């Protein structure tokens, strides 16, 4: 099993370190041929405008969109969820494979960044790290909300697409990476009850 990590800009090394800790092989994705032999892909945090622009510039946009539509497991954090969203308030969307609406920088500038501690499953005080995070304003009926914060969804699952507005890769906790590998890439859904 090899997981691709989109490495155009942002915190892709942080995701690689988490995968390393799970003994999962990974490669950095920078050009279309890198997409050939992967079993899943991570869209990391960073600046979504930069990543979206470079996806197009390096001809990754169409092949990646096609692969996700055809079932390639994808795990998106922060900027990544903006790339996946079918609607971005006030702007045109990017890959648009995930039927949700998001609002960019909805918590404000850096002074609005925050950490929320959450209990779910066997996790106690899991730190949800929101950095200039987007806000999910609407979700399609078929999208599962895995976690919410103050009654608004912050982590969602839609078939092969796992996406969150916070940064699990900064939390020193590999719960969501493990979830992605086991439940979506290896499809062992039975291991997980609903959150």
């Amino acid at each position, binding site marked *: 099993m090899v997981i691709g990590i989109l490495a155009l800009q942002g915190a892709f090394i942080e995701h690689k370190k988490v995968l390393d800790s799970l003994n999962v092989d990974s490669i950095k994705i920078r050009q279309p041929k890198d997409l050939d032999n992967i079993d899943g892909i991570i869209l990391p945090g960073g600046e979504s405008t930069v990543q979206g622009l470079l996806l197009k510039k390096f001809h990754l946009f169409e092949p990646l969109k096609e692969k996700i539509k055809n079932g390639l497991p994808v795990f998106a954090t922060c900027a990544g969820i903006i790339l996946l969203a079918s609607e971005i308030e006030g702007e045109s969307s990017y890959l648009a494979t995930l039927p949700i609406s998001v609002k960019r920088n909805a918590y404000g500038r850096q002074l609005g*960044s925050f950490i929320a501690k959450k209990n779910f499953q066997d996790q106690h005080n899991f730190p949800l790290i929101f950095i200039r995070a987007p806000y999910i304003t609407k979700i399609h009926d078929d999208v599962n909300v895995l976690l919410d914060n103050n009654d608004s969804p912050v982590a969602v699952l839609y078939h092969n697409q796992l996406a969150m507005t916070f*940064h699990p890769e900064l939390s020193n906790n590999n719960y969501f990476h493990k979830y992605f590998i086991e439940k979506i890439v290896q499809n062992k859904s039975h291991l997980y009850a609903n959150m």
Partner: protein
Amino acid sequence: MNNTRYELNKGLAQMLKGGVIMDVTTPEQAQIAQKAGAAAVMALEKIPADIRAAKGVARMSDPKMIKEIQNAVTIPVMAKCRIGHFVEAQILEAIEIDYIDESEVLTPADNIYHIDKTKFKVPFVCGARDLGEALRRINEGASMIRTKGEPGTGDVIQAVTHLRKINSEIRRIHSMTSAELFEVAKNLSVPYDLVLYVHKHQQLPVVNFAAGGVATPADAALMMQLGAQGVFVGSGIFKSGDPFKRASAIVSAVTNYNDPKLIARLSEDLGEAMVGINSEEIEIIMEKRGR
């Protein structure tokens, strides 16, 4: 500043990695920078090359102009305050800037003390020429470091020197025994814990960008290959013939810094680069400001 805030501020710098932060002086330039793929913009009234030409005292920019730039883009907006000028920093925090650069490009306001950055919620980036400066700034609360380079010259030699120096000192500390680490902490005037972190992790505890004199895609890729985690481009873009094209090319070169064929293509037809001043011929040496 509590620990949570510091983690969030270091985290924002991590999100900027692999990106280019561009100096802009107007909302229009900020939009060009964003369209070209800037990961953030630095809002300032005069770019370093013009500050150098104008001489006199260079201060924090007009907050109104910074706010106009904040309203023009969705990417993070940074702004500079003078070294030691904590009231300029308070003003920038009040207008909710995303990152403050306590910068040697402006005329220093204090010839002994830097700002106590632990008193602020908003993050700070500071320049460094060597590991000691970097760790002292981190100890004062900086959540991101950049090389000082020699700003406004289009001459990359100082940035190369500073980055190589920081990295060789990190390698040296990594190979030391624990007894030697105490001596290093004493000599660098930094807390032992920071030296121990460098020894264990073989890197700074915060993100480190290159800055000062970067003018071409090749310069940017050079800094990345030398170990920078991203690049600031000041005068190099809007002092050149075709700013959008040059900015886009520098962004692509930073992403693909190990791909000479691509960088060759990116370097074609960029129009005139900033003329540049040889760093040995200049009168004002900004890198020596603030240690």
